[in-house]
């Protein structure tokens, strides 16, 4: 059996964790949920830093923990890469020695990566000889991620690696993470509160609440499911996965074809045929019954309304789900507009997506 299978039960004060999940042998899974829902606790159980009262854990058929057999492999013999909000770099080592700390301790097999191969995607080249004391927050996290990856983990755990950073650093580190994750051949769990990070990085998603798994599945289904908390969020978005088919150098735009249509995105850096994820905020999507003319909105997509849901937190808003080809698009509009336009399930409509609002 390949991939990860975990079942954990444990109590911490009033909190009870009770989860049972499997992860494929590769790919990124976002673990999300309210504060205190147990995300960090799960990761610590996986890394062997916390011992569940009962349960089991195996990776690629190899058993790491089993409460019945009394088996509990200690963290240093698990090959887990674990990066948290705080980089926890070793202050007595320079950047290079921090990076090599885990690599030098790889046992029983050859290291999967070399320092050289990671220096580029993580932007570490100019940092190698620096002392860790005067790295910026973003640099620290990049080093922490590199350090974890160089230890050749068989499972990578990232616990809100960017949530303590300011906006600029967050962007820089997320890009680095994105670059290394796409080459990763082991399962990765990425804990985040942030929908957009999840949509950007993950293939699958687990939604946790009160120590239990409430929903899981492919990211684009979970985040745009109007019945799950993500879609209810003010920053709710839908995720389209498509391919670059044309580039307009002069305007700085690229055309992305996805199952159901085409979108123009503000970027020229993508190569032709590149697979891209397009995140579209529900509040950036307007609905029209006629195709408007002479308007600055570039992307106007035809679709069919499949769902209308009241937004719980804000009574004046409704959430419209549109089927655009085989893709789902969320739009958040006022209830008055929905009524005035007479929107109902099954109606044909145009979705106006400001291309400036597409983040990726």
């Amino acid at each position, binding site marked *: 059996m390949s991939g990860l299978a975990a079942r954990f039960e444990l109590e911490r004060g009033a909190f009870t964790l009770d989860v049972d999940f499997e992860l494929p042998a590769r790919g990124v899974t976002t673990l999300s949920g309210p504060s205190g829902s147990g995300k960090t606790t799960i990761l610590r159980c996986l890394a062997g830093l916390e011992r569940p009262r009962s349960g089991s854990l195996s990776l690629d058929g190899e058993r790491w923990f089993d409460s019945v057999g009394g088996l509990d492999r*200690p963290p240093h013999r*698990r*090959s887990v890469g674990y990066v948290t909000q705080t980089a926890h770099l*070793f202050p007595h*080592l320079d950047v290079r020695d921090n990076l090599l*700390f885990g690599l030098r301790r790889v046992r029983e097999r050859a290291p999967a990566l070399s320092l050289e191969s990671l220096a580029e995607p993580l932007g570490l080249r100019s940092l190698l000889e620096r002392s860790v004391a005067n790295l910026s927050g973003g640099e620290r996290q990049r080093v922490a991620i590199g350090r974890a990856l160089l230890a050749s983990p068989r499972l990578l755990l990232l616990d809100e690696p960017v949530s303590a950073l300011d906006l600029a650093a967050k962007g820089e580190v997320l890009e680095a993470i994105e670059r290394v994750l796409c080459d990763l051949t082991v399962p990765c769990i990425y804990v985040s509160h942030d929908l957009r990070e999840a949509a950007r990085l993950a293939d699958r998603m687990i939604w946790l609440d009160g120590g239990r798994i409430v929903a899981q599945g492919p990211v684009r289904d979970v985040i745009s499911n109007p019945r799950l908390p993500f879609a209810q969020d003010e920053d709710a978005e839908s995720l389209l996965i498509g391919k670059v088919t044309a580039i307009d150098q002069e305007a700085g735009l690229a055309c992305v074809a996805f199952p159901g249509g085409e979108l123009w995105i503000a970027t020229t850096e993508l190569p032709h045929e590149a697979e891209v994820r397009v995140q579209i905020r529900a509040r950036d999507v307007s609905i029209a019954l006629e195709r408007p003319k002479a308007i600055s909105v570039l992307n106007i997509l035809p679709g069919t309304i499949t769902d209308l849901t009241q937004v719980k937190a804000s009574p004046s808003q409704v959430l419209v789900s549109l089927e655009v080809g085989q893709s789902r698009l969320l739009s958040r509009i006022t209830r008055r507009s929905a009524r005035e336009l007479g929107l109902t399930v099954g109606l044909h409509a145009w979705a106006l997506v400001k291309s400036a609002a597409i983040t990726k």
Partner: protein
Amino acid sequence: MDLSPFWLSIRLSITVTAILLLLGLPLAWWLARTRSPARAFVEAVVALPLVLPPTVLGFYLLLLLGPKGPLGPLLEALDLRLVFSFPGLVVGSVIYSLPFVVNPLKNTFREIPEGQLESAATLGAGPLDRFLRVVLPLSASGAVTAAVMGFAHTLGEFGVVLMIGGNIPGETQVVSIAIYDHVEQLEYAEAHVYSAGLLVFSMVVLVLLYSSGRARRQARFR
């Protein structure tokens, strides 16, 4: 002027400091991390020499370590003679200076964030590896303070040595005993010279320790 008490004191201090570090490092680590209910008791025992008069400590060490003492037969079997010998002074001074080494180490160890150790563990470092490659380097400043305090305090040790030393020149007659002797013999000039030497040496060591302290105290863990 006979400098041998000085050299003896310095030799004693170096030996004791080395042993104290060897003993103190694991002991302090245990004290800093354990949640055992025995912790407070062990901490108190380690701190006792701060509180007990050194002569009392020395007197009981004499009774304990002498051939008729509870440990006498054991020491005899091991062919170890601890009273009136340099090794005896070492044992006495180790006990007496233990808190001066364990306390600063314990405090530095407590400052090491759990996350540093957890990181090291997930990066493949086992317990001993973590202690040697993470804990020790991170505690360098505390270890220096501990070593200096242990060294300096042993240098000034009097009561324990008085009781178990036997005042053997070149073997157990350390500088503090020599000063006392000179005072006893009304040889104040010699007492002044020895004391001045000790004072200057101690001041130099302490000023160096404290002026380097501020720099090291800066926040290091992020």
